């Protein structure tokens, strides 16, 4: 029940913020101000993350970019496996076609 009430409040809050943001965004100056504010917040977050990364590396621990690099490598391996699997599906079809032409007495 409490969670339901919290959910309703959150939804109403989001709607109110959305309406306010909509009003700001409808004005070009408001849009520009919001863009700058969000840009500043993103740059600050990047600086913080960079500092955090250095601190974690200094302590011999992995940081988010290290995990991201791993996910990138996994994605590459998955793609290569998919491509290989596609090729393997093509090869039996071609072999079957070649066998048929060998056996049709055309030689």
């Amino acid at each position, binding site marked *: 029940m409490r969670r339901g009430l919290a959910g309703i409040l959150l939804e109403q809050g989001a709607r109110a913020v959305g309406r306010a943001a*909509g009003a700001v965004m409808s004005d070009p100056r408001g849009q520009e101000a919001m863009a700058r504010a969000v840009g500043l917040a993103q740059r600050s977050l990047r600086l913080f993350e960079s500092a955090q990364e250095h601190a974690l590396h200094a302590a011999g621990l992995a940081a988010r970019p290290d995990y*991201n690099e791993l996910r990138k490598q996994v994605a590459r391996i998955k793609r290569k496996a998919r491509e290989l699997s596609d090729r393997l599906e093509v090869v039996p079809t071609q072999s079957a076609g070649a066998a048929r032409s060998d056996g049709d007495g055309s030689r």
Partner: protein
Amino acid sequence: MAAGSAVIFLSEPWLAAVVAAANVHPDLPVALRGLGHDLAAVVEAEPPVLRRAVAVYGRQEGGRIAGARVLADPDEIWELEPAYVVRAPFRVWKALLSGGDAIQAALSGRVKVQGDLEGLIRRAGYRYIVDAALGSVETEFAEEGASP
């Protein structure tokens, strides 16, 4: 697109129709100028409506969308490293495609955007291009349990 020729949401024909509609808009080159080169949109799984996540990827070149495709695996995004990644569950995308408020969806956290938000917010006024492109394509949403 002609009436009665609905295309299934997230299918290759649907994506091609949306891209073609966007590319003929005269304001598209201005809207894309200065933005990152590519974008991925992820429709997160929402069983039983959508059993697995689906991702589409598009890149811009010369003021138009030069290429777009449905990714075989959403994890390809890690390899592609697009400038923007937009993620939302199936029902949220469906609501947005039906004219839902994108700002409210983003602020409530239902839509997650990675990338340079500053540039995207500056171009929020060009949303009508996306709306027009989506509106011109008769979209059919897969029934419960179906995959696109």
